[in-house]
């Protein structure tokens, strides 16, 4: 697939991880490099994969949790492969846990998920999104996909391996692939139907 981050492409994390493991850079300096490397990706996950009003807080949560863990990071041999992205994987997992926390908290507040959805996107906003972003595939996917399908899509787009996605979602790699294909096929059908109406 075009431009997909190849499974075998060298990981930008490895030079930072190695420098830190050898004590050549401080914990904070290495953290800052990871922050610069991945802040836009984490922000993208939060924008697409969470309620809009939670996106900033979720983004912060992910980095706060990572910082705490990074200070006592264990450099495991399986993380040393040239293409390994243990930090991106950690951030992705943490992002999912954080989103789940906000979802559960919102459910407590509103009792029903329907109410949560109603609050998160007002009819006016919905109309605006339809008008402005009708052809934006990510925006349509955001509304059409289930939480798991969005998680898989965002992970795929971010270059996280199918093995990591499977481990994070506690499903098989084959199931990841199957769900991904099914959801993209559904998206395609949906977009075609909307184009034919307009």
């Amino acid at each position, binding site marked *: *697939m*075009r*431009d*997909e981050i190849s499974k075998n492409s060298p990981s930008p994390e490895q030079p930072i991880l190695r420098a830190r493991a050898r004590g050549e850079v401080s914990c904070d300096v290495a*953290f*800052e490099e990871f*922050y*610069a490397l991945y*802040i*836009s*990706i984490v*922000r*993208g996950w939060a*924008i*697409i994969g969470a309620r809009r009003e939670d996106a900033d*807080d*979720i983004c*912060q*949560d992910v*980095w*706060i*949790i990572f*910082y*705490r863990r990074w200070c006592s990071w*264990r450099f495991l041999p399986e993380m040393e492969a040239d293409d390994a992205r243990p930090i991106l994987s950690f951030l992705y*997992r*943490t992002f999912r*846990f*954080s989103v*789940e*926390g*906000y979802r*559960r*908290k919102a459910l*407590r507040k509103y009792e029903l998920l329907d109410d949560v959805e109603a609050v998160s996107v007002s009819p006016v906003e919905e109309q605006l999104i339809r008008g402005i972003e009708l052809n*934006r*595939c*990510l925006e349509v*996917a955001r509304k059409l996909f289930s939480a798991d399908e969005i998680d898989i*899509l965002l992970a795929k*787009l*971010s270059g996280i391996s199918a093995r990591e996605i499977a*481990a994070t979602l*506690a499903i098989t790699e084959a199931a990841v692939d199957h769900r*991904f*294909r099914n959801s*993209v*096929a559904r*998206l*395609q059908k949906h*977009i075609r139907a909307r184009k034919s109406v307009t």
Partner: protein
Amino acid sequence: MIDMSLYNNLQDEWKSLTDSDSSGAMDDLDWSFIHDQLRTPRASILFAELEETRELWRELLDMIELESYSERFITSAWTLKDLVAHITSWAVELRSQAEAAAQGQSFDYAIPYALSIVGPNEWNRIEVEKRRNLSLAELLQELNQQSVNLEDLVLELSEEELHAERRFAMAPNGDPSTRWKGTIGQIVLMKCSHERYHLDRIRQWHAAVRRIGPNSLPPRKPPLRKPK
């Protein structure tokens, strides 16, 4: 087959969304907010830490068939099942202290730490003994339930309640009258750190066992004889 043009569109949109220049991310590399939140992590962070710990347990159970090592000694004093009983006992204790603190209760008991050894040696021994008759599966189930209950509590409490300083039952300096002062948020993080520490140790132990082969394992614990 996936529609390639659609997937390419998705990739282009993702790229433009996460492109540092257009998202403004490069203008905002200030991460000083992290230090503000380290001492008083909000509920969503505590929840995510608890979820991650549960996930690490699930991964461990997928990777290792713990039952088959249940009666093997993992330390000089404890079998693997004893260690899980120890972890569970702390999960129960910390959840219970957090709940009591949230209800404004104070503690009429203390858990004094042994000064020569890290941790409350005597309390640990008694609590493991209390769970002697539980199976490994029962212990793991109890452990998981404690985390679920603590997650519920964390999401229920206000930020003020999570970060109000209180006296808890632990007495790290060994003196039962001088007890640890902290917050419910810190109790939650303590639980997660404690479990992650032992999870790491179990993984290391298992890796060593696999390297040296099962025949080199310490002996199994003899089965308990039923009293006549």
